[in-house]
């Protein structure tokens, strides 16, 4: 997979700044993410992690610098990119079945009226099986637990057979079972050469899933291998002394001058 097109990176950012209108939410990011890599975006709330993900999708304007995704503009690459939104951005009482939610991933290629054919149905079933929800396929989306809903949305993102998968805080609020199911899925995707970019508070998970990490706080603090970047001094600088505790993991150290 990595060798198919040799010189275009999965995502290439050159001094890129992103803004929703007004002052940039995230400025001056330079990083080259190769195909098949798994990158963790780490930073406090409001540091620009979601903004960067949306920038890669072309949903936030690049006001300065450049970004290319799979060798083209973000909008051009959109159909080859899967995206898992934060669960809080989703209507969780929606009156449709899990399978219908996953089928929505194929709507773009089906058009407004196209009926899902055999290939479509197989893609949908495969995605549901892949995230381990096959026994629940016909349950109502609203009846599922938060973790299962999260995995259903991941299955939807997988139906586009993405070359890049973007995940926004996928582990937030997951119980142990859902967390390990999600980890398994992500690791198997990585093994197939899918490029993964995920935002997270959770440094343990960043170490478990990712090869590289990007520390962000309104700008790029550091980008490198997980071992090099997820070290105390850099992490402290990123979090500026704010205490972050996530799901019972005591992860972010309180700097001495505050503690």
């Amino acid at each position, binding site marked *: 997979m990595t060798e198919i097109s040799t010189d275009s990176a999965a995502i290439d950012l050159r001094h890129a700044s992103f803004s929703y209108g007004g002052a940039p939410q995230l400025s001056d990011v330079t990083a080259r993410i190769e195909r098949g890599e798994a990158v963790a975006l780490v930073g406090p709330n409001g540091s620009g992690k979601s903004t960067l993900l949306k920038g890669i999708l072309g949903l936030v304007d690049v006001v300065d610098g450049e970004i290319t995704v799979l060798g083209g503009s973000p909008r051009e690459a959109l159909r080859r990119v899967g995206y898992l939104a934060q669960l809080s951005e989703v209507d969780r009482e929606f009156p449709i079945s899990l399978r219908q939610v996953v089928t*929505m991933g194929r*709507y773009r290629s089906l058009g407004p009226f196209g009926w899902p054919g055999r290939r479509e149905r197989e893609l949908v079933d495969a995605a549901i099986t892949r995230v381990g929800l096959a026994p629940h396929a016909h349950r109502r989306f*609203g009846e599922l637990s938060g973790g299962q809903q999260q995995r259903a949305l991941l299955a939807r993102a997988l139906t586009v057979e993405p070359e890049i998968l*973007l995940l926004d805080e996928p582990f937030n609020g997951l119980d142990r079972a859902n967390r390990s199911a999600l980890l398994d899925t992500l690791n198997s995707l990585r093994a197939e050469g899918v490029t993964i970019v995920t935002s997270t508070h959770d440094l343990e998970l960043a170490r478990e899933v990712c090869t590289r990490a990007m520390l962000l706080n309104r700008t790029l603090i550091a980008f490198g291998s997980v071992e090099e970047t997820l070290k105390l001094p850099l992490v402290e600088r990123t979090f500026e002394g704010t205490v972050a505790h996530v799901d019972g993991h005591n992860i972010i150290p309180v700097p001495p001058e505050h503690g």
Partner: protein
Amino acid sequence: MWTATILSPSHPSTDSPVDLGFFFDPFSVPFMARALTTVLVLAVASGIVGVFINLRNLEFISDGLVHAVFPGLVVGFVASGTDGLLPGALVAGVLAALLLTVASRRGVGSDAAIAVVLAGSFSIGIVIVSRETNYVSQLEQLLFGGVLTVTPSQLTQIIIVGVVAVVLVVITWRRQLFLALDPVGSRAAGYRSLPTEIVLNCAIALLVVAGSQALGNLLVLALLVVPVAIARLLVRRLMLLAPLAIISAALAGWLGLVTSFHASISYGITASPGSLIVIILITLYAVALLGHLLVERIRTARRAVPHTCFEHTGQHPVLDLDQDVSARRRWSARFRRAV
């Protein structure tokens, strides 16, 4: 509203055990048949468009659209009587749909923006209509409608406008659905949200325009919101929402007309059919709500069964308390959505 001279009630014999004539005879009179057709057309349109008003929680925006249409109705009416109603309302409705879409996307105090539009346009409408002589009865007509005085050409207009509203929603069904479930996800899938929102708001505006002539500007909101709210209480399948909403709206419309007819003929009570339709619709909602509450009760009771199992296994009952609380929370969320 009823003029006794028009009616030549052919009261059927009461020999048959079930006197269906009571329910069907009124519609042998042409204007009653037109009223029924109008109500059925509106039921179908509101059942389909209303699905997304409910799923996207657009009830308040719909209210804004309803009121924004009012000055359009007034101007149209003042300019050229009943025939002016539709063009006037159409212009005002589409303009308001565009404005409200943009306002709500800005997100900055969108509720306030809607409230301003709502109050402002209503007062403008009333200022204009109050310059007319005999304005009280005209105002009444505009606010409470006249489903019994719908002319054949008005009916044609209502059908056309209703069909356009339904077509707009049906051809954008998938993107509307995606946007309603998760806005960011739909944009990430490559759907642009602005056109999708404009199309839906225009469809709602068209429905308001069609419904205002029959039910009046004040009561049309019930038609937009209540049928799907009823369906939402009864089923949890998307594909059943529209059919059930259509059935409840049609049922309320038909019963409302029949009731109004007989109240007038047999008891000489002049009851506005539009209001009766809305009252019956609300009654259906109340019944559905009661049924829904009962079912939820039974479900919660069933869910409580593991309670004893936990006690046997020696687990702390706090677990069940949590479960109960989350069930209640889920229920109240659903209730709020439904209302």
